[in-house]
């Protein structure tokens, strides 16, 4: 589950939106050696030629930092994303839906692992990344700071949230950093199952009772705008977009991907028989796209900055899971050491 709203910075400092931070003055230009300049130009040429960068290759510090931030936020989002859906495993309406949901939540854990591994190739440790998440220094997708109130939310998350994630993730399969691109290919293959199972479970509910249909519509109403915000702030207000574009990490702008998502979703909503809650949503013949209404960015930034309905609960649950598992990790390591020592003694 990836969103381009990762173009926000980590850290305790508030991301108060586009207007909050005063523009920094011109930074002093550091003097660089000839050798350094050659490395930079070789690197930039490789990016311009659509080449791939591998872990052992030389890379500018800004490239490494951008990747570490984006990949670790992406990984965090996968494992925090397990929580809202995990809540429904024990309450799934049938054994079939329960098995599907368990498989999906397990996939999200796997996606987290692929991504943490990709980030580790950049020299940051798994423990450090988790520590940043658990202490609130690192961000994760704010979509998971909203509650999953009914069973229909589980379907809508698959259809819309994972649908938005797919839009974001497909271009990343061609991103300039090899390990990230390879992880994304794997993730995208699995993500398609996530979206289809969600949509299909909603189809079943729409063929059910009036009450079930109302439940689906209610869930769509609550999630639609949040999904549009997942693509991140408008291009003009997205501070990290430019650097991601320059380095071949990001291939499309936030607004372009958001438009693609809207255009793709309208027909799916029609087939499903739900209304997307936007009176301004209409086909624009001249643009060849659907127009849509204004997104509430204040709410987006409030949630990013920690004041969403579930921010505290998600982090608390995540920290507790980590703490509860500590003795298992310690015991496994102690066991492995003991056995290695015993084998060494026997061999001597």
């Amino acid at each position, binding site marked *: 589950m990836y969103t381009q709203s990762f173009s926000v910075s980590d850290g305790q400092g508030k991301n108060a939106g586009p207007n909050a931070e005063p523009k920094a003055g011109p930074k002093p230009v550091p003097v660089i050696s000839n050798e350094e300049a050659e490395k930079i130009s070789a690197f930039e040429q490789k990016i311009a030629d659509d080449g791939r960068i*591998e872990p052992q290759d030389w890379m500018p510090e800004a490239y490494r930092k951008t990747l570490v931030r984006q990949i670790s936020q992406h990984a965090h989002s996968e494992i925090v994303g397990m929580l809202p859906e995990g809540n429904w495993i024990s309450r799934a309406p049938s054994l079939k839906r329960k098995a599907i949901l368990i*498989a999906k939540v397990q996939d999200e854990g796997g996606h987290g*692992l692929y991504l943490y*591994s990709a980030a580790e190739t950049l020299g940051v440790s*798994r*423990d450090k990344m988790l520590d940043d998440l658990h202490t609130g220094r690192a961000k994760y997708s704010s979509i998971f700071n909203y509650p999953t109130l009914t069973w229909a939310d589980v379907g809508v998350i698959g259809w819309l949230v994972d649908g938005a994630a797919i839009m974001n993730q497909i271009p990343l399969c061609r991103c300039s950093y090899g390990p990230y691109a390879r992880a994304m290919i*794997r993730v995208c293959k699995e993500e398609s199952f996530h979206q289809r199972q969600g949509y299909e479970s909603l189809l079943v509910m729409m063929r059910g009772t009036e009450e079930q249909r109302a439940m689906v519509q209610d869930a769509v109403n609550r999630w639609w705008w949040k999904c549009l915000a997942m693509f991140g702030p408008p291009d003009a207000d997205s501070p990290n977009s430019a650097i991601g574009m320059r380095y071949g990490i990001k291939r499309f702008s936030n607004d372009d991907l958001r438009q693609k998502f809207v255009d793709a979703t309208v027909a799916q909503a029609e087939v499903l028989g739900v209304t997307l809650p936007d009176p301004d949503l209409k086909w624009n013949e001249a643009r060849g796209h659907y127009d849509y209404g204004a997104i509430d960015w204040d709410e987006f930034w409030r949630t990013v900055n920690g004041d969403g309905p579930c921010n505290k609960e998600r982090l608390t649950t995540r920290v507790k899971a980590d703490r509860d598992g500590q003795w298992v990790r310690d015991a*496994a*390591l102690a066991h*492995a050491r003991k056995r290695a020592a015993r084998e060494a003694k026997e061999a001597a």
Partner: protein
Amino acid sequence: MSNALKEWPLWEVFVRSKQGLEHKHCGSLHAADAPQALQMARDVYTRRQEGVSIWVVRSADIVASSPDDKGELFEPAADKIYRHPTFYDIPDDVGHM
């Protein structure tokens, strides 16, 4: 236990997708020991019948060539085009060779 040793060591995972094909690198994971690495590789990398056999190897045990040696190691092959079959012109009459 020192902090550096608290993290499980890193393993590289190689999966054979079917009999007759080679094991291919597919990613990495942390595990306390080899049996656990195998079990976790199964859970993480073969949930959809992607494999029939798994190798795991400690990442620290892999010896790799350095990117700095790329030129020295691989460029000498570039001007030896006579090592390729297409270097040789054979009359069409000969047929497939």
